[in-house]
């Protein structure tokens, strides 16, 4: 199980930049001054990319911790934290 977590850790680390890339690409494709939907406006995209970037970095750190075996044993009391 722990070796599987390590392999998955690599996957989470890779997934994070892919998510950001897809978001930025979608933003560039859909922002359109003639469009009327929310996906055509720049403001929602700016907000979403702003909030998603730290979340994706969080996913990357999660993957890194997983790769390093930080989740092999979860804390059982607050003394472990």
């Amino acid at each position, binding site marked *: 199980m722990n070796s599987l977590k390590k392999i998955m850790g690599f996957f989470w680390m890779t997934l994070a930049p892919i998510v950001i890339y897809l978001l930025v690409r979608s933003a560039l494709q859909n922002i359109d001054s003639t469009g009327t939907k929310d996906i055509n406006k720049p403001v*929602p995209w700016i907000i979403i990319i702003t909030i998603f970037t730290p979340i994706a970095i969080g996913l990357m750190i999660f993957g890194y911790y997983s790769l390093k075996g930080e989740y092999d044993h979860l804390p059982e009391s607050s003394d472990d934290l």
Partner: protein
Amino acid sequence: MVLSDGKGIGKVIFSSSLGTLIEWYDFYIFGMLAKTISIQFFPEGNDTAALLSTLAIFAAGFLVRPFGALVFGRLGDMIGRKSTFLFTLVLMGGSTFLIGLIPGYRTIGIAAPLLVLLLRLIQGLALGGEYGGAATYVAEHSPTNKRGYYTSWIQTTATLGLFVALGVIMLVKSNMSDASFTSEWGGWRYPFWISILLVIVSIYIRLKMSESPLYTKLKKEGKASSNPLKESFGNKANFKMVLLALFGAVMGQGVVWYTGQFYAQSFLENTVKIEFMQNREIMLWGIGLATPFFLVFGALSDRIGRKWIMLSGMLLGVIFYRPIFNTFLKDTNVKEWKKMEGDATPTIISKEILKVDSITTGNELALVTHSKIKWQSQQGTGFTETRADSILNVGATPSVTKEDSKPVFTDKKLSSPMKWKFISLVFVMILFVTMAYAPIAAFLVELFPTRIRYTSMSLPYHIGNGVFGGLVPFIATLLSASSPTDPLVGLWYPILIAALCVVIGTFYLTNKIDKNIND
């Protein structure tokens, strides 16, 4: 010290839940009255007002809610749970009441949308601080073997808040004409004003409450955190649990919650085109019948652990969302309805010619008749058909009639058996919500120590629900734009996020209940 006697804990649960319910009510009425608010404060054709409107919708949920979780989480860990979630209640109630007092754009111009935006952001901030406080407060009063059950009462408030908001709006609306309701100082403001009464009652009740016993003990011993943000997110051992809570539980729970409770309603209204009142009736029955299951799964999580109940709710969503939403579409296919026989055969009950356009091309004249036809069957099904038929080569013998190949069907009314089938399907989706959402408060509380619990649990909760859940309609529109022929394409976002969460949760989370949260 925990309150194991029914009366004491009952008061704690009631006072905490009531305030949280009111905060949800306040947050929802803005969304439910968005169309009227938009007319009064964000008129079309004004670019600045449009920008402020977009900010009010997106910034309040995505940016300010997690920020509120940090601000009030920190405060709750430093000065106490009681004062903090009392303050969030005052902020929420005050800003809701004030939105109801702002004159419209026609009276005070751009100041109107600016003030509404400001107050909406305060609402988002307050909501970000409320939930963590209420969940922590109830959990810290609960005995170990009932923590899931007692905190599940807090979990019902997001659904009950929706009920109260819908009920109040429908009550006000049914007692006046549409014009009176939507006018500048019309009935749409009443739900905002009513909020202040609810908040005063709730503040009165909360003022009588005492501080959480675990927090009081911690404070007395001088062990309260002086910098909860640093301890929560700067300490690797705790930060990794914050990440685990987000990616292994709350992220999936947020999309399941949003899909069942909100996306289903929007899909039935905008894609399936079910008549306005029947759509709400279906949602209210489905949600109402499923709500007690929050308590059932909360209590069950005390016996068998939180993990598998939450993950089962998400997995069931992953498996059944597409079949359920596909059934909604298939069962309301008007072309199939028209082929039905006997009592189920729809017949025309009225036909109205909306307008006739005449188009001349060279010597030929064509007439395009736009009409609205109402159909109904004896079984109770009905719909409105809007079509544009053309008569080509008018005056010639014979003229050619070209029927509209793509008529639009709206205001679909389901027969009683079909309505109950839809209610059952909504009920099933809310059941998934109750599974994923009911144990989450106890799960989060048990993951973090008392000294930084409020901060540590609030942020993942509001990112999971506010950001991942709140993005469901936006991503659905995005996916629909890239694949317009598939009406179910929007479901891939909640399905993928929930599936990812199930994988992470399965491999990384433990099902063990932390018996001692006094540390």
